[in-house]
């Protein structure tokens, strides 16, 4: 069965013509229409309604996180090409004058800036770890989180956004608790996406680790089947991952000094949904006219 659109550019043209997205001067950066945001908010509420850990704290994160916490994630080692570092001006009046001079002459005015104490958020769960208790309780730490994420990547595919929101169900605890969390969420996530009329394939996947060093990380991640992606066909060109189920082993437990009752580094897992991508997948699957979507899907999303 062929995908709704032949190429990413066809889908891009369609959603722009329908006014669902408004293009900016930069690929991967779009404004969203009110209707698109309504569907996305409905999706967010619907995903939240699938929670099984009703006592887990729910947190909405800002689009930035402290630089020191970011560095503890090892993101720079793994994905230097995706990083969004924030620069700020801390100079004097004289330095401001020099900055404006460079700006006026078309020179590099950013040389007058310096790195801030924050970076753009690299992943939803990265904001969480530093706020967890160093000693993870025996029943594990759980959280339901949402936040903007930045990835410096772009192209004509409207599903490849530089700034987007993730909705995640996270657990930090023992290896058994973490794997159990991920593996119990996978069929639940598949069911909720299928209930919205999507037909995702669940595939072993890997993160886009950078360079030669990244090849080793990819090999390890695939070999251990740490990551599964939920992939839909929006275009014939390539599948689009709209959600992922991840087991991070003890990576964040080690880097954030989180331990379980036995004194070992805590293990982590999350079920993550891409809100903009899933919303785009819904428009691709059901058509660009929201009024014509199946009644049960509209009812589930409350729109």
């Amino acid at each position, binding site marked *: 069965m062929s995908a709704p659109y032949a190429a990413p550019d066809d889908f891009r043209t369609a959603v722009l013509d329908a006014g669902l997205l408004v293009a900016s001067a930069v690929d991967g950066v779009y404004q969203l229409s009110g209707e698109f945001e309504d569907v996305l908010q409905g999706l967010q509420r619907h995903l939240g309604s699938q929670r099984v850990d009703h006592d887990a704290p729910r947190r909405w994160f800002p689009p930035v996180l402290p630089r020191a916490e970011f560095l503890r994630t090892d993101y720079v*080692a*793994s994905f230097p090409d995706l990083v969004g570092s924030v620069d700020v001006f801390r100079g004097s009046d004289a330095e401001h004058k020099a900055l404006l001079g460079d700006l006026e002459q078309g020179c590099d005015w950013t040389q007058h800036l310096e790195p801030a104490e924050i970076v753009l958020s690299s992943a939803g769960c990265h904001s969480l770890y530093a706020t967890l208790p160093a000693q993870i309780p025996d029943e594990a730490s759980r959280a339901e989180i949402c936040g903007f994420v930045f990835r410096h990547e772009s192209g004509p595919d409207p599903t490849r956004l530089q700034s987007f929101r993730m909705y995640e169900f996270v657990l930090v605890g023992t290896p058994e608790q973490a794997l159990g969390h991920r593996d119990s969420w996978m069929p639940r996530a598949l069911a909720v996406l299928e209930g919205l009329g999507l037909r995702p394939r669940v595939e072993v996947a890997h993160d886009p680790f950078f360079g*030669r*060093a990244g*090849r*080793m*990380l990819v090999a*390890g991640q695939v070999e251990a089947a740490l990551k599964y992606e939920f992939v839909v066909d929006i275009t014939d060109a390539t599948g689009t991952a709209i959600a992922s189920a991840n087991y991070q082993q003890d*990576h964040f437990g080690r880097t954030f000094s989180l331990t379980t009752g036995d004194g070992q580094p805590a293990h982590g897992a999350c079920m993550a949904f891409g809100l903009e991508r899933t919303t785009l997948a819904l428009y691709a699957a059901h058509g660009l006219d929201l009024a014509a979507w199946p009644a049960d899907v509209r009812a589930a999303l409350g729109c």
Partner: protein
Amino acid sequence: MSTETTTTQARIRDVLRLHAHLTKDVDALDSSDDLYAAGMTSHASVTVMLACEDEWDVEFPQRMLTRTTFSSVDAIAAALAELGATS
């Protein structure tokens, strides 16, 4: 075990001591012991790989950039031998 092999293994252990972040003393490990089981993370194994390249002035080809290549002192020694790197 030849002197050359002994030297290579000693240098590998030096690299591991600096970069593998093992939870056990590297000298207490047998050369066939699993380094990942001894606490080496995936990220640490990447650092070990890069440090070996610097130490022996070699470049591991893509087919050798796997978890298995860096799984033990013996495995690393075998990989280096395959690349013609000696003591």
